[in-house]
């Protein structure tokens, strides 16, 4: 049968030749492409050291003023000021990093509602279906219970179709308020307009959209995401003594991460004239399988790069094993928004640092916005969420996500008069 199954030789050979040519043509085109992000060694300006030091000090002092109630943090900020004033950006970065590693103790949110918050309200949360969204739903339930409200969770798989279906349900059932995360206005614009007409209060998280046109409150804005750039920069400068060649990993699918990327790049340039910056765009489809190999390839072709800066921790899942297998034992990883796997990486030393995501603080802030609207008082401007840089030495749990401010619930309850 085999012999008879073979077709004319010239057909198979010709097609294979097409295959070869097509593949090699692609390789030539791809490798000749200029879209690879070029390595950007941060140019040293003549006054870079002074500028970097003052910027670090300003950032550190500013953040310290808003978040550091503890003596340790104040002391660290003071040290940063001193170091910056001395023109030592590495010392400033180390002082700032020490401050970021302190667990925040207060939410940056001090205005009491001041009026009775109505009980018995019915609110809905549109769950995107991920583990993070499940956690967010649990936190919102906890906050709603404090206020005596009823929470309805509308579960979706995060697809535009299911998210729109959930908003259709909102239109039918008309709850008093709706909370949602990370869905751009372009997907649900007409539903937001309808919600505004129906008098439904809407609070959202993690968007690049603006407040208005149906959205009463947004926390986790692009501007707030940008405030994490200096945290990354301080850590890599401090850890490397100002000699870090870094590669920033990002997901182009999420516009909010562009702000973070720009912020990190600018911070690094300002604070460290001897540091290097590069970038890899990771396609969303490559998460979980191809990303580690892509990163290992980059590191092998850029042997001076020893620091991986991940815009989100999900990118580095599976990476520690790939680095070990490739013999790249001296690479350090910092990310943001750890899940339990990343927390375990931190505890085991496979990941050096991670900026914890303030799930609790941001979900409570969204509920606070609805509470103020229902109480008839102005909604507070979005506060700067607390920042906590996790390392092996201070990670509090590897099995559960946690509030950054330990008594977040109690601090919000106090503002609500509960």
């Amino acid at each position, binding site marked *: *049968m*085999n012999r*008879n*199954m*073979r*077709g*004319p*030789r010239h*057909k*198979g*050979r010709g*097609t*294979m030749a*097409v*295959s*070869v040519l*097509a*593949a*090699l043509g692609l*390789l030539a*085109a*791809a*490798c000749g*492409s200029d879209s*690879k992000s070029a390595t950007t060694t941060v140019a040293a300006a003549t006054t870079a050291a002074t500028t970097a030091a003052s910027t670090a000090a300003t950032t550190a002092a500013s953040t310290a003023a808003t978040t550091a109630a503890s003596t340790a943090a104040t002391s660290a900020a003071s040290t940063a000021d001193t170091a910056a004033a001395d023109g030592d950006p590495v010392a400033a970065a180390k002082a700032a990093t020490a401050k970021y590693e302190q667990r925040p103790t207060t939410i940056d949110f001090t205005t009491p509602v001041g009026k009775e918050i109505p009980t018995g309200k019915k609110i809905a949360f549109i769950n995107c*279906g*991920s*583990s993070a969204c*499940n*956690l967010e739903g649990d936190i919102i339930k906890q906050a709603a219970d404090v206020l005596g409200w009823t929470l309805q969770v509308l579960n979706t798989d995060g697809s535009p179709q299911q998210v729109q279906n959930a908003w259709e349900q909102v239109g039918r059932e008309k709850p008093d308020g709706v909370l949602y995360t990370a869905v751009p206005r372009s997907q649900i614009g007409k539903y937001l307009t309808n919600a505004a007409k129906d008098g439904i209060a809407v609070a959202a998280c993690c968007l690049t959209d603006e407040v208005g046109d149906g959205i009463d409150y947004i926390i986790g804005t692009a501007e707030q995401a940008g405030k994490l750039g200096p945290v990354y920069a301080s850590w890599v400068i401090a850890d490397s003594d100002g000699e870090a060649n870094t590669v920033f990993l990002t997901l182009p699918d999420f516009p909010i991460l562009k702000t973070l990327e720009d912020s990190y790049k600018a911070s690094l340039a300002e604070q460290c004239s001897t540091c290097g910056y590069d970038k890899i*765009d*990771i*396609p969303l*489809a*490559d998460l*979980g*399988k191809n990303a*580690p*190999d*892509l990163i*290992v*390839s*980059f590191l*092998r*072709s850029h042997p001076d790069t020893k620091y991986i800066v991940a815009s989100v921790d999900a990118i580095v*899942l599976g990476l520690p*094993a*790939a680095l070990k*297998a*490739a*013999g790249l034992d001296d690479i350090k990883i910092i990310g943001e928004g750890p*899940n*339990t*796997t990343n*927390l*375990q*990486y931190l505890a*085991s030393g496979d990941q050096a640092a991670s900026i914890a995501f303030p799930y609790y603080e941001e979900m409570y802030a969204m509920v606070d916005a609805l509470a103020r609207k229902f109480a008839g008082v102005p909604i507070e401007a979005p506060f700067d969420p607390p920042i906590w840089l996790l390392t092996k030495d201070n990670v509090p749990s*590897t*099995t559960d996500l946690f509030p950054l401010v330990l008594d977040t619930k109690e601090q919000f309850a106090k503002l609500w008069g509960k």
Partner: protein
Amino acid sequence: MNTTSAATASPSATFGVRPAAAATRGAVGRRIRGALSVRKVGGVYVLIMIVVYFSVTVPKTFPQWDTVRQILNGNAVSAMAALALIIPMAAGVFDISVAYTMSLSGVISAWLVVHTGLPLGVAIVLAVLAGTGVGIINGVVVVVMRIESLIATLATGSLIQALITMVTHDNSISHSKLNGSFSKIAQGSLQGLTLPILYALVMTLAIWHLQQHTATGRRLYAVGFNRDATRLAGINTNALRFSTLVLSGTLAGATGVVLASSIGSGSPTAGTPYLLFAFAAVFLGATQLKEGRFNAWGTIIAVLLLGTGTTGLGLAGAPSWARSMFTGIVLIAALAVTGLQRRSVGGARRRSWKRPANDRDATQHPTATVQQQEGEQQ
């Protein structure tokens, strides 16, 4: 071809070499040329060209042992996932649930290690058996309930994912307990080569042996080529199709445990990114060595071809879209080859059946192939 007449006409016969020896050498030569023909191992030639290309364009990093290590280490789990698909595919059965089964067994193994005092070996066996259980359910749905395998395994895959989500709430299972012996399953290495390479090699040899050296393997191909004809030849096609799904579930279960060990946690969605690549590798592999047949070594060639190309592109600093485009183009080209081969087979078969019955090769019909090959083995 009449080898005797060919030998008689050869120059060696003219110079006094014994015709039988010359014929043997001629047959060996033809066999070697056949084995090395572009149509048989075209992927290997493409692989060689890719290696040469990147060795020239990325001379500092590509032509190194580290690159070989990276390609092998980075694609071992992918190869295992693809190998899990081969047996059902050879029998004409799709198993979409393989990726979800990988997630399931990974989560189960991690959960057992973290939350129970079971020995690691028992935890692994139970996780693999969970994959076997999925295979049995698939078998019931596909064979007993007679639902098309593509749809049926898609449905069972959704059920598996729902089960995982229900139990884990989509949270990864992680704990320091997973850093010990469990992590060594995938992260242990010999001379820089991680253990999944060994697992993939063992799977390849086992599947190759099953397909090429057992009657069951021949029957599986026959079922895949023409199920009705095979059934009419007296072979229990339902039992074979059922068993392929059980086998793929078991192999996917084992692959899931290795993947969980590699990640260091039981991730509820760890397996799904491997689905498309596994099918891509299996289809591409079917164009290699056995021409239109899903086979183990062809699949390994496919995995290495795709892995070498994408790793080379990464080392060359190509943009991220280039990797996807490379994979897509290679697949289209490979499937075009397969399509041409099948059309050629169809044409050849139609032409041969126009000849008198006693002039036909007995191996032209799938069932005849099975009967003849089984006779040869006996």
